[in-house]
């Protein structure tokens, strides 16, 4: 099954009740699939007039307690940033699939990872965070999407699945029936569903004009983010024992790095990988487990170096950090990563 369609089906299995979106390449198979399968099952699908409108439809539906999803790609996610900030401010659960393409501007439609900042730093205003998963294969994307609504409901915060054009467009054999961990979800007693459905009057809002009140609200959000950091940070350590070098890579890039370290092993160079699965919260703790054998860290991205910031923070000056990046939709060959390790010293970031 194609990655985009698989993610769409996984969202349905995760309980999606409504989708609102706007066409953009390379994620169109998601709305196409959902337009048929949600409506067929009596659920909601609306093709909005813009990404701006779509994310606000998400706000509306999420305010009533529905499990709601939208998807888009780089320039489209840029347009959704206003709404994402409002969702976080109003503490609304929702699922956002972002299938990255090359930028800036209209850029191109080939796979890229240049929206790491967009996903983890956001372009929306204010102090907020998304919970961001960066799957490296379709199966992982499915497993995350199936529980994404639970995670969003658990923390009353939007969850983003950050894929790229390769994961969206490629095909792999997958299993949709892998079990999802059970979570005890808080009761949605805050929803605007009409006063006959709950006690008192509910309103869903992100406005707090009194600075004292707003500060308290943001403090509360950040207590929640601390919980997210504690409970949801995920990463994989690959071949880390006795590694001479450690590559840090996520998504499509980590797949390429897996091939690269096999080639390097044949050359007698032992290289491990730290693969962040959540990029917010960032798995800083993984860097504490880097063995003493390691001589340096190579951050590898399909961008000019965005996760690099988090790698340098996590490394905290302990080891030299080098960078390898391709961008604009260029997907590197494993040999390029091999070469980057062989010429590590030339790539060290000052």
């Amino acid at each position: 099954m194609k990655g985009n369609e698989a993610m769409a089906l996984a969202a349905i299995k995760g309980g999606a009740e409504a989708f609102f979106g706007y066409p953009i390449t390379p994620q169109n198979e998601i709305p196409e699939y959902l337009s048929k399968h949600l409506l067929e099952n009596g659920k909601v699908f609306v093709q909005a007039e813009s990404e701006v409108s779509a994310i606000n439809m998400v706000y509306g539906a999420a305010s009533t307690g529905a499990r709601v999803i939208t998807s888009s790609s780089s320039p489209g996610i840029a347009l959704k940033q206003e709404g994402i900030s409002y969702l976080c401010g109003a503490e609304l659960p929702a699922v956002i699939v972002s299938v990255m393409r090359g930028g800036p501007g209209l850029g191109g439609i080939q796979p890229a990872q240049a929206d790491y900042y967009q996903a983890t730093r956001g372009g929306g205003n204010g102090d907020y965070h998304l919970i961001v998963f960066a799957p490296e294969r379709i199966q992982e994307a499915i497993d995350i999407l199936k529980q994404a609504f639970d995670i969003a409901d658990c923390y009353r915060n939007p969850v983003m699945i950050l894929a790229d054009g390769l994961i969206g467009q490629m095909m792999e054999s997958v299993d949709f029936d892998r079990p999802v961990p059970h979570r005890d979800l808080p009761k949605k007693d805050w929803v605007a569903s009409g006063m006959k459905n709950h006690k008192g009057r509910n309103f869903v809002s992100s406005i707090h004009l009194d600075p004292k009140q707003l500060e308290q609200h943001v403090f509360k959000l950040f207590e929640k983010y601390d919980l997210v950091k504690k409970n949801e940070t995920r990463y994989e350590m690959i071949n880390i024992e006795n590694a001479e070098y450690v590559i840090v890579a996520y998504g499509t890039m980590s797949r390429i790095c897996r091939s690269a370290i096999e080639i390097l092993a044949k050359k007698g160079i032992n290289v491990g990988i730290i693969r962040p699965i959540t990029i917010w919260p960032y798995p800083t703790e993984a860097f504490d487990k880097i063995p003493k054998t390691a001589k340096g860290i190579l951050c590898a991205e399909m961008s000019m170096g965005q996760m690099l910031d988090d790698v340098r923070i996590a490394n905290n000056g302990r080891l030299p950090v080098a960078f390898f990046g391709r961008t604009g939709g260029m997907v590197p060959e494993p040999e390029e990563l091999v070469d980057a390790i062989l010429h590590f010293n030339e790539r060290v970031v000052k």
Partner: protein
Amino acid sequence: MRVKYQKSAGLTDAPLTYCPGCTHGIIHKLVAETMEELGIIDRTIGIASVGCSVFSYEFFNCDMLQAPHGRACAQATGVKRVRPENIVFTYQGDGDLASIGIAETIHAANRGENITVIFINNAIYGMTGGQMAPTTLIGQKTTTSQDGRVAAIHGNPIKISEIFAPIEGVAYLERVAAFDPKHVIKAKAAIKKAFQYQMENRGFTMIEVLATCPVNWGKTPIDAMNWVKTEMTKVYPLGVFKDKGDNNE
């Protein structure tokens, strides 16, 4: 003792924050009474917008959402599509609806979303301090058209009801005003009809209300009411622009 008049159950006890002579209060009352009379307070979800009515979620005694600037009709679409059994209305000013939110509004109308839009047209940006609105009249002085609006520079006042009337998804559309008791009564009837149409699943309904902004217009409340009557209605004629319930339609 008989109660002849009391505050509608559709309003909370929060004191209104609107300026003296502003017609938001009257229009809030009409929406609130409509909800009460139709017995729908407990299943209505309102959407507050950005502008002076940003706090309307504190005044309407029903469940409310607060939308980003211009996005109320998109949020209303999201609400109504997943909860068609609820009554959904937006309450938006002219900057919100006719400028930044015209795409959201026109497409909600075109989809025939079964929602009711209360559109407050006071020909100015009130909340931000009196800047030119898309509905500002030619010659009208604002803080961003200090010598008066000039068509060649600022464009012409946008006539929302005239633009929306031909759209297929619009079931009911009327422009009313609140400058004297007779017109307030007419405005109430229009708002009630719009909500009733929504209850009958007829499609998109919008009531444009010509409203005052004495503070930013630099007028007394009475002069402001008169200005709506004599000047605004010349550019924005009152009347029913669309009624799908009408057999002649």
